[in-house]
């Protein structure tokens, strides 16, 4: 009897394990096959040697040395860093007051829901379309030019608004700002109102209370927002293409060229790895900051 039940239990366990292996195994296989393997290939390729007209397997650091010594590539990396930082800062400056208003000042729950939706909704619209919109706004025939002409600030259409780094920052800020608003909103919403009241009770005016209580407690959200917008704009490929102009190439465009027209996969792979390292460093940095915020610096 007991032997039988043990066998049954054993079978049940085996069945259970099989199902478990299935549930866990499929995603692991998926990730291994479609993520780790490609990364592996890229890492390996980044050490290969470019040999006209193609490239040959090798193990040498030439590609990385080129990236950090050829001013052309150094410039692109720096430019991409600059654009990503500017986009993050611009998004933060716009998103924080907005999220603050929604959480603390907006009395009507309906209005709050609508405004929040208004920020999120563009995410459902095609990315390409949203980038194109800025082309029509900033272009010489665009909305901005005709407005300025009508108001009388300028006499003839100006081309200074489009195809430069300014238009790239504007477009990317517009596209990625939801990723700044969402974490900040969440962080602010989590702050108990009685902490702000306690601060006022202890003699601090609204500005000081904000500086000493609200802002520090919302920093994890700010860090998350910075990480998201930074990483997204750092790897962006379309905005430079559409509104960036001749000197607006970012890393992603260069990588695309290396894998395409230039047919230099090794260099493209090396550039991808550099990009990956930068993004991962930012993510782990912000992760550490968030953790620190959660435990109050412990």
């Amino acid at each position, binding site marked *: 009897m007991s032997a039988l039940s043990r066998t049954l239990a054993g079978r049940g366990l085996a069945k259970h394990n099989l199902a478990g292996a299935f549930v866990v195994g499929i995603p692991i296989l998926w990730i291994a096959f479609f993520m780790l393997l490609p990364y592996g290939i890229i890492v390996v390729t980044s050490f290969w040697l470019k040999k006209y007209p193609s490239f040959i397997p090798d193990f040498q650091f030439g590609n990385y040395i080129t990236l950090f010594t050829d001013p052309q590539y150094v410039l692109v990396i720096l430019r991409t860093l600059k654009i990503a930082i500017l986009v993050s800062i611009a998004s933060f400056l716009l998103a924080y007051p907005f999220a603050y208003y929604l959480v603390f000042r907006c009395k009507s729950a309906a209005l709050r829901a609508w405004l929040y939706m208004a920020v999120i909704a563009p995410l459902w619209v095609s990315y390409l379309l949203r980038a194109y919109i800025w082309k029509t706004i900033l272009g010489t025939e665009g909305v901005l030019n005709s407005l300025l002409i009508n108001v009388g600030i300028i006499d003839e259409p100006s081309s200074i608004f489009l195809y430069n780094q300014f238009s790239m920052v504007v477009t990317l800020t517009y596209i990625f700002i939801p990723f700044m608003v969402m974490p900040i909103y969440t962080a602010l919403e989590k702050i108990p109102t009685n*902490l702000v*009241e306690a601060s*006022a*009770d*202890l*003699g*601090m005016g609204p500005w000081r209370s904000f500086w000493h209580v609200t802002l520090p407690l919302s920093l994890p959200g700010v860090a998350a927002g910075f990480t998201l917008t930074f990483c997204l704009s750092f790897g962006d490929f379309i905005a430079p293409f559409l509104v960036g102009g001749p000197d607006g190439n970012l890393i992603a465009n260069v990588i695309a060229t290396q894998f395409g027209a230039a047919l230099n996969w090794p260099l493209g792979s090396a550039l991808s790895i550099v990009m990956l390292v930068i993004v991962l460093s930012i993510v782990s940095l912000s992760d550490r900051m968030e953790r620190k*915020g959660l435990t*109050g610096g412990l």
Partner: protein
Amino acid sequence: MAAIIQLENLSKHFSPTIIGVDDVSLSVEDGEFVTLLGPSGCGKSTLLRMIGGFEKPTAGTIRLADKDVTWDPPYRRAVNMVFQDYALFPHMTIGENVGYGLKMMKLGKSEIETSVIDALRLVELQDKIDQRPQQLSGGQRQRIALARAIVRRPKVLLLDEPLSALDAKLRELMQIELKHLHEKVGITFIMVTHDQTEALVMSDRVVVMEAGRIAQEGKPQDLYDHPKSPYVANFIGTTNFLNGTIDSVDGSRAVIGMNGASLNADLETAFSKGAAVTAGIRPEKIRVLADGESAGNVLSGTVAEVIYYGLGLRLSVKLPGGEKVYTDRILPDRLAQTSVPEVGQPVRLGVDPQNVFVFEGRIEP
């Protein structure tokens, strides 16, 4: 003694139908420990929050030490609040939390440090100065919240259900500790609670609130022994209510006719013959009579239920008219079961006329 807080016709109407506080006038003496007592939704917290400056009244004035502070924001009032869930800043150490309120007081660094350490010593937690609120127990956080509020030497300390988050044992301990703290620092305390024991144990004066208004205020003992309404009689302690009619009045002594019984009662207010009234009797003022024993009032009935609660016995006795009354008896000796009545047994209950409250009108049983 001078009044430190004067509330004059203070009201807070959230909307025409939602009334938080309705025309409350109250004066609190300097150094007093006053408790606002009532069930949730009676307006006690709103009243406290108006004194703290967190809610703006819709009518009336608030005076703090003879100065009109009705429209002052919280950071311009010399009052401090101990919040219900303490509201300690999670991103600061205990020392920074307690010192937070001193930043704006134009003190030197060493002065702040001394004050913080003194305040922490007062609540006996000076060794926690470098820890974070998250590392402390509920009772310790409570004491830190107190230290943080007291360190500013406010004229009035407001306490919003300060003990409600603590477990029963700790709460009992903190009641006494808070009372001692009040005596030590000499600051006026205004506390909000829904716990009548807390109110009775700690306060000099209790203000019972009902639907935004003051139902009755007075010393704990006055409220317990002389409630002016069934609401107060039932909120502070337990009371048996019996509906009846005044059958006759002779000086301050009245006879109340009830369903098949009558009750002699000492009146505190005048009633005329024939008035509909409710008699209120505290369970512990009713005793089970021994054979041949007599009392100012004798009610007979049968035991419906026996409830043992360690400290004593509570009997539910069914009267001939169908009403049930509770009677409490402390058991002074262990194993006194010999005298415990059984369910269904007939008993005679004795009540002295002076222990019968008489309220105007009848209440639904």
